[in-house]
């Protein structure tokens, strides 16, 4: 097992490369989800404000 | 022509125009874009004098030698036509090996020896397990390590 993690002496290069790629995948997923959610929340707020105005006038 | 077709032609012409412009620019700067010189070019004096250049080629088999009591390593770099001796004392990359491509950064001295400050290994695009490489070598097939494509630099 420790032999596996040693990567034949290239552990310092192989694992960071896999780690950074994993981070990039995660960041993409989370950023896309956040973008969709925030857009929806912002537009919902705008919609409520608009219809509120319409009622007041 | 409908406006849509007109836009299609416009977009097509634009991309083609940019491609031609970039192509011409790359062609014009071909020499400045040269990443390394081959031994043939370096010996013919095509490389700028008194400036650091990169020398690329293959480490000749059996040419890596070290003078006793000296840290300096010497090896011959070849492009299958001409050969230049490289002198280097420093850390070598893992893939440095006889028969393997290298790129050395440095200057040619008065004796025609290339004084390298940095040596990089060039590797090929072949990936295989060691057993397969061994079989291929014993079968007398084309060796799994072809010489680096130095000829591309000669164009």
């Amino acid at each position, binding site marked *: 097992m420790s032999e596996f993690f040693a990567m034949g002496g290239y552990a310092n290069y192989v694992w960071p490369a896999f780690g950074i790629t994993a981070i990039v995948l995660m960041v993409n997923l989370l950023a896309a*989800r956040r973008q969709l959610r925030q857009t929806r929340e912002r537009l919902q707020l705008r919609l409520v404000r608009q219809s509120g105005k319409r009622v007041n006038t | 022509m409908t406006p849509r077709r007109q836009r299609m032609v416009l977009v097509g012409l634009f991309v083609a125009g940019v491609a031609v412009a970039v192509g011409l620019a790359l062609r014009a700067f071909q020499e400045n874009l040269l990443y390394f010189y081959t031994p043939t070019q370096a010996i013919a004096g095509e490389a700028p004098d008194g400036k650091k250049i990169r020398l690329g080629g293959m480490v000749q088999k059996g040419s890596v030698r070290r003078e006793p009591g000296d840290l300096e390593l010497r090896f011959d770099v070849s492009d299958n036509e001409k050969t230049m001796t490289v002198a280097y004392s420093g850390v070598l990359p*893992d*893939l440095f090996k006889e028969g393997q491509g290298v790129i050395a950064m440095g200057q040619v001295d008065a004796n025609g020896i290339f004084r390298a400050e940095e040596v990089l290994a060039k590797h090929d*695009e072949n990936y*295989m397990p060691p057993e397969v490489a061994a079989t291929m070598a014993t079968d007398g097939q084309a060796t799994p390590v072809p010489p680096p494509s130095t000829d*591309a630099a000669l164009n």
Partner: protein
Amino acid sequence: MWTWFFQLASPPHFYRMAGSLVPWLLWPALLLIVIGSWGGLVQAPADYQQGDGYRIIYVHVPSSYLSMMVYVTMAVAAGIGLIWRIKLAHAVAASCAPIGATFTAAALVTGMLWGKPMWGTYWQWEPRLTSELILLFLYFGYMSLRSAFNDLNQSDRASAVLALAGVVNVPIIHFSVLWWAGLHQGPSISKIDAPSIAFDMLWPLLVMILGFTLFFLGVLAMRVRGEVLEREFHSRWAQDVLRGASPMEAG
């Protein structure tokens, strides 16, 4: 013949379809990436020259491939947006840029981590590396150009022109290793003659590339949904979706 094309390009249809598609893209992507990583890290044998160090290929090549594939997608979408005046196409192009930029960065960083032990250097100003760096700047330029306009139509058109101009860089990246003698080796997979990579090492790579592609499509679908909703805010269907009064909210 074109009806499916325009139906697909209709925003409400796209919004609904993309929503139901996302899990069907992202879960298989996850599965493929896990299988590919296991194959690449555990199953594949060590290389005859690079030992275990070559395993970086399993993240470097898929990232590099996506960096270019996403750019082509972006440029094609931008071109369609310009020619047919399809807003959805501009939304796709705009959504591609942040994804492409991150994978370009991943390709560069994993490449540096591979280059250091094997070549002996993190970075060289050689053709392949330099043209890939230019790709990163093209993505950055595209994104900042988009944000420079207040008017969405102007932003769409100006950025589309930049995306189309930059697309010439993609073949330059791909062929840089063949056109100029640099430090980077030639292509292993797309070579026409004898395979340059043993099958045991190849299959995890292909699985990873497929996984990354599905991942990109899934994330792209999510982003485009947000973009479309924003652009279609004044339409009835979008407001129905926002009120939760629409069955479109499947995803």
